[in-house]
């Protein structure tokens, strides 16, 4: 089954394709120094790497955060160059970034926030069906073991770290994106919360969807099995492999990247 999906994806260029991407901070410091990575629909990729390797920056550049200026290379989604698209256009086109540190939005209830996000995907004059919306929201909240009171609470305000991460996954499930980028979704989660988050992510696995997990630790990959693992260091992908690469990293630490054989 995966074999068929692959070939179909390749044929239609169904992938998020990052090609020789360079990006700098406003002060000129280059953070991404030529990242090339293709995430075909139907696959889960993981990027691991030490602090400061550029993992989080990569996720933000894919979402078009304005603190980072892409200086070279391009990103295509299903064959279409998205480099000129704004943050919200990319989201509506199907890219979702689950934040490492999700913002609080005081005074905006979770239910209204997600509804506004869904509404933004509809043509002008067309409204979300409220009954269907809540049904879908509650189903997903149940899966993520979130109390119903979360719908009325202001987005992330006063949420624990784990609640915020679950809320990111809830948004991801509701928006049903084509490509999911999860930036350290596992950080700050205890094992129970991690299992719940993984359950949500695994429920979203689909031949039509590509996922990129950015993580520091192998632990997450025990619960969400990646197809490919990449190691990032100093703004580049320095090694790619199968799931076994994560275990190797766990065992040897990031220091083994510095061995000349890897260069």
């Amino acid at each position, binding site marked *: 089954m995966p074999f068929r999906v692959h070939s179909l994806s390749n044929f239609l260029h169904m992938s998020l394709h990052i090609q020789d991407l360079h990006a700098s901070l406003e002060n000129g410091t280059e953070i991404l120094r030529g990242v090339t990575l293709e995430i075909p629909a139907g696959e889960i990729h993981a990027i691991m790497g030490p602090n400061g390797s550029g993992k989080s920056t990569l996720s933000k550049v894919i*979402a078009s*955060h*304005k*603190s980072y200026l892409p200086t070279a290379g391009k990103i295509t989604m299903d064959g279409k160059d998205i480099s000129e698209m*704004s*943050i*919200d256009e990319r*989201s*509506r086109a199907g890219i*979702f*970034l689950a*934040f490492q540190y*999700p*913002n609080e*939005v*005081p*005074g*905006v209830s979770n239910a*209204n*926030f*997600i509804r*506004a*996000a869904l509404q*933004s*995907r509809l043509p002008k004059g067309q409204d979300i069906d409220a009954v269907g919306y809540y049904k879908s929201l509650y189903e997903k909240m149940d899966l993520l073991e979130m109390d119903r009171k979360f719908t009325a609470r*202001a987005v992330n305000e006063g949420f624990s770290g784990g609640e915020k991460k679950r809320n990111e996954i809830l*948004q991801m499930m509701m*928006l049903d994106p084509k490509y999911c980028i999860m930036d350290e979704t596992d950080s700050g989660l205890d094992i129970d919360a991690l299992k719940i988050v993984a359950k949500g992510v695994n429920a979203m696995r689909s031949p039509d969807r590509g996922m990129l997990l950015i993580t520091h630790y192998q632990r997450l990959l025990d619960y969400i099995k990646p197809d490919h693992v990449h190691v990032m260091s100093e703004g580049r992908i320095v090694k790619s492999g199968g799931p076994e690469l994560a275990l190797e990293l766990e065992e040897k630490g990031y220091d083994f990247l510095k061995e000349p054989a890897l260069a």
Partner: protein
Amino acid sequence: MTSTLPAWFTARQESAKTRYESTPTPKRGDEQWRFANIKQLKFDNLSGEANEADHSDLISRSTGVETPAAKFVFLNDAVISSETSLPEGVICLPLAEALEKHSDLVEQHFMKQESRLGSAKYAALHEASVKNGLFVHIPDNTEVEDTIEVHHWISGETTVFPHTLIVTGKSSKVRVIDIFRSADDSTPGLTIGYKDLYAGQNSSLDYIAIQALNEVSRMIAIKETSTARDSRSRAFILNTGAAWARNESMSRLEGPGAHSDMLSVSIPDHEQEFDQRTFQHHVSPNTNSDLLYKNTLYGHSKTIFSGLISVNEKAHHTDAYQTCRNLLMTDDCEANSMPGLEINADQVACSHGSTSAQIADEEIFYLQARGIAPDQARQLIARGYSIEAVMRLKNEKTEALVLKFIDEKFSRIAIGGV
């Protein structure tokens, strides 16, 4: 309201007229008018003509909370519609009628305080000119669960002087909403309103003023709140309309256990200017006041907040808080804040603070990353910003009504393409 005004009232109106004429007009440099646009005090329409307006149209536009306990509609200070279903013993009447029927009760409470926040002249003008408004008297041990709702329409280049006098008896409860609107969008009216609020012992008095006049009108609103032992007053102001509005709010805490909430949301756009002066006066020990004013400024608009917490010598164990927050939505708007403290007692917990900020890029980024366009993201954040003060109303129907006016304002701002 023609012939049978009580003698005390006509005498007070006459002396107020003299006082109005002898009191100098505020001028530049007056501390209580600091940052204010004194030019706004040139009132050309004091003697202007009132216009008739289609009563049934205004009545049908007078929608407020679901199931009000009483509903009055005024046009240029004259009642055009009223309906009430209030508990026995509650007096809720147009002031003109109350002056006839309950002259003593009105006299006991009518404009007893000297205006101290800058508009003494206009308080005198109001006193000299007032013809109508609403008088609410809640007897002891009586709770009015639903809201008393009052719609004030102004039509013509005229001046109105609506008065709201609310008195709650021991262990009673009431909530009154005044909604100020213009009959049309282009006629500049002037409203010089006055509110006398007396929360009796162990009572609960909520007062909400929604100012949604057209953007060429002006308003002065003076409010005197007195909160007695173990009682709770809550006063909320929403400013969305008017070219210029000045709110002077005095809250006196006059018995141990008294609690006063002073809340406000202002959303000025274009050249609108909202000037708010407040005074939290802790007269008795063991009292608590909590002020939260939130302004969201668009266009070239301007706000002024000047607040004073004053704690009397013997008012020990006072808790007093004052917060004014400004959200600046453009580079051209201007928010002025002047918080102040005057403490003459011991064991007092007071804090005051004011902040002005713009929406951080990170906040916009988060909403945009969910597909929400930047303009809408900013508006969602701005709306959420106002909600903190709205939620303190602690009444769902009232919150919904206030939010309706807030949302109307935001949709006008969105169309205006600021």
